[in-house]
């Protein structure tokens, strides 16, 4: 990745701005997916939570996140070891003070990051569906946007030590993550895993023989997938141009790669569920579509469409087994956020090491990034949320969960004209 800001042409800057304006559609799509996979009695709460955590993430990032993340070539805390200066953390001013926005590339980076951190914040909501308090999710998001996300984003996108592995350690071009498979999605997915562990499963999920609690609105989920596709193409294009120096001419390739990976992953997940259950599973197929987008993000501008399809194929194969495996180990993830974003993100980062080989040693840089995600992001995220849970219990009480988060936290349901369904559960 870049250790100095990229120089964009005027046309590139205008196009990049247009791409950034598409990114909120990815957030809207993910919010719809989360709401659709949850119960009807928590649907309004789910959508409101998405808006609230987006707002909290943006404000926290403005306040402290940008200061920690910094930007390539910006002020930073360095560790000098063996004659080499390793860039550890950004040291820009709080509230973006001292950052002069006379460099259009820098302005675009800051703008894109506000949306990116919002997307990362929405991901854990899927794992906490139907039982995560609104205020707790906002507090947890502040920790994500203020600490966890900016540190890893600095290491990869801010010219940090993972980006420097190319120039200082001879590992390819340093850690590659053009579209944020690791920085956005794996961080969000691993935070979702922490949240699922801390909250525990929904009431009734693992009692008796084990129950499948179906999502209340599959059209929401499937429409959300289509929205994410549009947002993703904007996100991948803008971040590839800004953080990995992709030329404007590579944008059509990014769009084709996104489509190829998502399509192959969707069809693969559908075929796998057809073979295993006798019919294609709409929820897992939808997750297949999104995991394809997540997995291709890291190398979106750097591989051919055939390689993108191969990356999507593996991602589509992984998602049904990952969902089942998590379920078997008592990790209740209603939206499949962990399988889609953590597994897909980690696979995307690894795939970039396997399929992008500008210089030898690229896979070592990608392995270092995976190690940072598992050994830094996951423990930090778990530790922070565990502490938060001790101070302010994150899970709603038993009565509140049975009543639904809409009524217990908001005082009104999403569908007041419809009678409450008497049976939310289906025997597996």
């Amino acid at each position, binding site marked *: 990745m870049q250790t100095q800001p990229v120089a964009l042409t005027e046309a590139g800057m205008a196009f990049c701005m247009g791409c950034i304006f598409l990114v909120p559609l990815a957030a809207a799509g993910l919010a719809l997916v989360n709401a659709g996979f949850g119960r009807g009695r928590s649907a309004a709460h789910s959508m409101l939570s998405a808006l609230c955590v987006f707002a909290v993430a943006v404000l926290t990032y403005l306040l402290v996140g940008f200061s920690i993340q910094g930007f390539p070539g910006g002020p930073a805390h360095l560790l000098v070891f063996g004659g080499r200066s390793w860039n550890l953390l950004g040291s820009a001013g709080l509230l973006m003070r001292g950052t002069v926005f006379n460099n259009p590339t820098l302005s675009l980076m800051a703008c894109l990051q506000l949306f990116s951190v919002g997307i990362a914040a929405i991901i854990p909501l899927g794992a906490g569906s139907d039982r995560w308090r609104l205020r707790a999710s906002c507090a947890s998001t502040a920790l994500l946007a203020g600490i966890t996300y900016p540190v890893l984003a600095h290491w990869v996108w801010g010219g940090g030590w993972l980006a420097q592995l190319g120039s200082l350690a*001879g590992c390819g071009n340093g850690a590659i993550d053009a579209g944020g498979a690791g920085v956005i999605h794996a961080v969000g997915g691993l935070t979702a895993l922490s949240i699922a562990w801390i909250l525990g499963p929904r009431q009734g999920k693992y009692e008796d023989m084990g129950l499948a609690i179906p999502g209340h609105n599959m059209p929401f989920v499937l429409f959300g997938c289509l929205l994410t596709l549009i947002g993703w193409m904007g996100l991948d294009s803008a971040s590839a141009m800004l953080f990995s120096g992709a030329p404007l001419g590579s944008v059509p390739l990014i769009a084709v790669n996104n489509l190829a990976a998502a399509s192959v992953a969707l069809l693969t997940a559908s075929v796998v569920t057809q073979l295993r259950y006798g019919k294609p599973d709409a929820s897992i197929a939808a997750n297949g579509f999104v995991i394809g987008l997540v997995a291709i993000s890291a190398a979106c501008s750097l591989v051919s469409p055939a390689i993108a399809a191969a990356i999507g194929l593996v991602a589509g194969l992984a998602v049904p087994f990952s969902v089942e495996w998590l379920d078997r180990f008592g990790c209740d993830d209603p939206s499949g956020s962990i399988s889609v974003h953590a597994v897909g993100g980690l696979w995307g980062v690894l795939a970039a090491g396997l399929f992008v080989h500008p210089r*030898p040693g690229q896979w*070592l840089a990608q*392995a270092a990034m995976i*190690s940072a995600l598992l*050994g830094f992001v996951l423990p930090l995220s778990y*530790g922070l949320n565990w502490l938060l849970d001790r101070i302010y219990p994150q899970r709603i009480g038993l009565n509140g969960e049975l009543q639904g988060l809409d009524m217990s936290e908001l005082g009104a349901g999403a569908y007041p004209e419809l009678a409450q369904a008497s049976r939310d559960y289906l025997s597996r």
Partner: protein
Amino acid sequence: MKVAGFFLLCAGFAIVLCTFLLLSTTAPRAAFVLAGIAMQALGFLLVFRAHYTLGEER
């Protein structure tokens, strides 16, 4: 078990970090990076197992 799992996750990362700081040749570097990630995989499984056991006790 949970604490041990998280310890292994962090320790594996420390090994990978030190590898890039201390080693300069590719072969030993690759060996230590793989060893660090293997340690993290073990830690990850331990943390999973710990939460599964906690869930069963509930």
